[in-house]
């Protein structure tokens, strides 16, 4: 029984079958990659996992509870954090404030009226956020305007914001899309470090094979909205169907 | 039945003014991404173009008429328009009578220049600024325009009649085969409706069938791509601003015989036309026109006694009520595109 269980998920947009009978199981503490060519339904699947879309049929269970019909913030509160293709951060706030917000979200839940304490008095939260920044080697940037940082730093900040919530599952949506080879390698290193330091489950949606094969424990290949095959990276590399459907074109 | 027909006519008439203003607002918003709070003021300036032309045509010299006395008992000073003394009573008089339609020729260049100057001198610097700044600066401009007009034309409405031929009313009911004397409708309002329809048609045709229009439409959809093609989209957008101003100005000029122009008529129309634009869907030209007519007709029907007796005060709030219902049920307005003016 995996921490995330997707069973028989279907999703149609008009005449287009975006997802057809998707089954997926992500084991706790593993890194599970979902790959597939453009239009394979990766993003649709992700949106179904985070509550942005509701599948027509099927179930998505996280840690034994259904996520269907829940809003994004509720799903996050269940323990799923998400990293976006382009880093989504609070551009107008400082780096430290960016990390503080998930700290508060974890402690106080989806809504709380802590309108009378100043942020400066919340020593625990500040310590925790600073600790996270130090872990991510960003402590020196704490007072920077988040919007004014480099793209790599923004990605790093976004990771920090997700990790400080101590999620049980981290969803990464093409974390290296549009990055240079060097940045991509840095990101891979970062993810490896993260994985090395704590128990965390990751689901990565990616089409860069280099990233996938460097990180993943298991890989699901999607094609035309349905899982083609699911296996370990070694087996996937040699799988004929996969080569035909995907790798063949790019290899 | 005749009441319903009449109210529909009224509604279309009201709606055509809303539609024209909303059309210009949407053009500006769709092309330039600017929320123009001065658009009502442009409508007002258009109306005062009609007043100006009528004043210019009646520029006069004074003749002392010894046979009559003025209110102080002095010999009466009588104004004699130059036109009448040059061209004679009939020709001069006719030209003066036709000052409102003639004003169109004056309004178009004035509004194009005003629009062009506004865009180049002011709006241009606000493309990258938040919408709140755009609203504030154009609102400031609207106040300035309106106060200047007030300073020179006064606060009272100024009667600006339509040509005598078109002032009366006619039996619309008899025309469409109903009992005579049941549906009487003023000529000028029909003229206004037809004029608006023509302008709306012209704008759509212009956007649909000219290269210029095609580029502008492409730019509305995706500004960056068009820019990449090496087309100077900004320049075309500037011209579009001029055209939008001219549309608002023409709407105002032709409206002058219906409502005597006054300096605050722009503000009276501003809020309504924004509601129209939003109900139609931000950035959708057909939406703006549709919503304009729709709200005009609804407003007319809500002032019928039968309806007012059931819901007292409904004519006071109908527009806003409709706006709320539509925005809650159709988040992007009637014909709005996804993503426009959302986060």
């Amino acid at each position, binding site marked *: 029984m995996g921490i995330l269980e997707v069973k028989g998920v279907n999703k149609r947009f008009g005449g287009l079958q975006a997802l057809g009978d998707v089954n997926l199981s992500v084991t706790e503490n593993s890194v599970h990659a979902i790959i597939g060519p453009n239009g394979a339904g990766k993003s649709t699947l992700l949106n179904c996992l985070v509550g942005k879309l509701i599948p027509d049929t099927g179930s998505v269970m996280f840690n034994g509870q259904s996520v269907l019909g829940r809003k994004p913030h509720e799903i996050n509160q269940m323990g799923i954090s998400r990293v976006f293709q382009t880093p989504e951060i609070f551009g107008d706030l400082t780096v430290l404030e960016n990390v503080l917000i998930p700290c508060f979200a974890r402690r106080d839940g989806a809504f709380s009226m*802590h309108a009378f304490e100043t942020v400066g008095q919340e020593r625990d939260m500040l310590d925790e956020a600073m600790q996270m920044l130090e872990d991510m080697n960003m402590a020196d940037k704490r007072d920077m305007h988040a919007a004014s940082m480099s793209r790599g730093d923004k990605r790093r900040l976004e990771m920090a914001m997700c990790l400080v919530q101590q999620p049980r599952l981290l969803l990464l949506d093409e974390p290296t899309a549009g990055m240079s080879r060097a940045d991509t390698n840095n990101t891979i290193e970062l993810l490896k470090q993260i994985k090395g330091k704590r128990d965390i489950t990751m689901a990565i949606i990616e089409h860069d094979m280099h990233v996938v094969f460097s990180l993943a424990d298991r890989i699901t290949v999607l094609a035309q909205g349905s899982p083609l095959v699911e296996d370990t990276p070694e087996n996937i590399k040699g799988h004929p169907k996969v080569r035909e459907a995907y790798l063949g074109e790019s290899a | 039945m005749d009441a319903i027909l009449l109210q529909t006519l009224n509604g279309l008439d009201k709606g055509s003014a809303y539609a024209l203003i909303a059309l210009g607002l949407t053009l500006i918003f769709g092309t330039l991404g600017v929320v123009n709070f001065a658009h009502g003021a442009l409508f007002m300036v258009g109306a005062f173009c009609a007043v100006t032309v009528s004043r210019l045509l009646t520029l006069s010299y004074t003749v002392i008429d010894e046979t009559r006395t003025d209110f102080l008992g002095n010999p009466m000073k009588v104004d004699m328009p130059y036109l009448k003394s040059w061209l004679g009573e009939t020709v001069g008089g006719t030209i003066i009578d036709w000052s409102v339609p003639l004003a169109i020729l004056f309004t178009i260049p004035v509004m194009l220049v005003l629009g062009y100057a506004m865009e180049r001198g002011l709006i241009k610097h606000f493309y990258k600024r938040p919408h*709140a700044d755009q609203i*504030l600066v154009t609102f400031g*401009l609207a106040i300035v325009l*309106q106060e*200047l007009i007030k300073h020179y034309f006064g606060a009272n409405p100024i009667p600006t009649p339509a040509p005598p031929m078109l002032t009366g009313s006619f039996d619309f009911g008899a025309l469409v085969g109903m009992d005579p004397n049941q549906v009487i409708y003023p000529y000028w309002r029909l003229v206004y409706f037809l004029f608006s329809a023509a302008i709306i048609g012209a704008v759509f045709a212009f956007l649909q069938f000219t290269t210029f229009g095609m580029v502008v439409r492409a730019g509305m959809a995706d500004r960056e791509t068009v820019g990449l093609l090496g087309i100077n989209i900004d320049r075309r957008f500037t011209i579009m601003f001029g055209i939008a101003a001219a549309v608002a100005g023409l709407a105002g000029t032709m409206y002058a015989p219906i409502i005597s122009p006054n300096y605050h008529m722009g503000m009276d129309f501003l809020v309504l036309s924004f509601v129209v634009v939003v109900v139609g869907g931000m950035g959708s030209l057909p939406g703006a026109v549709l919503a304009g007519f729709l709200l005009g007709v609804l407003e007319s029907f809500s002032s019928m006694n039968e309806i007012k007796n059931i819901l007292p005060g409904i004519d*006071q709030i109908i527009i806003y009520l409709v706006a709320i219902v539509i925005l809650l049920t159709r988040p992007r307005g009637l014909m709005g595109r996804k993503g426009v003016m959302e986060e």
Partner: protein
Amino acid sequence: MLGLEKKDATLLLVVIALALAAPILLNPFPTESAMAQFNAGYPDLMQKFAIYGIFAIGFNILFGLTGYLSFGHAAFLGVGSYSAVWMFKLLSMNVIPALVLAVLVSSLFALVIGYISLRRSGIYFSILTLAFAQMSFNLAYSVLTPITNGETGLQLSLDDPRILGISQTADGGIPLTSLFGLAMRDSVAVKLGGWSFEFSVGYYVCAILMLVCFYLAMRIFRSPFGLMLRAVKTNQTRLNYTGLNSRPYTLAAFVISGMYAGLAGGLLAAMDPLAGAERMQWTASGEVVLMTILGGAGTLFGPVLGAGFIKYFENIFSKINDSVLQNWFGFLPDGVENVVLWVVEHFVGPGWHLTLGLLFMLVVIFLPGGLMEGGQRIAGLLRGKRKSGGDGGGDDPEYHPGQTPHVAE
């Protein structure tokens, strides 16, 4: 101090000092001098400064922090005024119950209107709030006249059934609004040389409430709650994917700012027991937007400054008439005087709207951060090159130069 950081504590102390000394600071010119025209230190105007300051501070909690631009906040001001006057009519002339009811009723209104309007964002939100406010205004002016007294405005009369108080004073007048016997109209005038200063009870009641509101706003700005509101403004998507529900945050901000507006409306009625429908008109809502942006949206002190500016213009510039001008420029030779008069006449008296319009344009064009930004720039110039970034002004957390994504969208 009071749980504030040093910088904020200093700001608060400065504002307290300014507010308490306002009767003196706003009357800088001797009473008999020609410049006395520009004195603003009389009770009514000072009360307006404080009251509209409260209104703008509250509006800023919504707009400055979350970026949601409400075009209907005047409705809450109006509702507050009506509630307060009804309290004076029915219960007691004491301002406390009136203010309490004003805040309660306006918060209820804000809850309902906010709950519906906040289902949409951007300009759709603005239009929804505008629509609600215009409906309130139109109805208050006409159909709801039994409650609002329509055009004339709700006033006290000699036969009000005041439960805890008297309907008429012994000499047949309407009793005054008061705070436990201290009448709002009471004041002390002090003559000092050529100067005259008037210290009014009403003003100090307003000023103290304004200071309390300012302090509360400061706490909100610096609190985790305030942080969330600023997060709403900069990126709602991220906020939702961080496990936070933005709707209750915005609704809370909306209701809080509605309560501020209600308090302001109640205070208007407490100072001058009348509530007119035009207090709810969209132009009145526009005014608070202008105040906030003119002063500097998102800054703590800006809205108060903006409110003061606009009320000053409305009350001082409009009163400069021809004979005053002739007084000032009488020394000039006739021809020159006429030219000067012709120019100046455009901008004062009936032309004060023009001046205000131009001022808005200039501020928005050259000082996007409002008057606060102007102040910071001047301060920066004065400090000269001694400082180049680093701490202090450089990364003032209050000032967001970046594009605010869903302001008015």
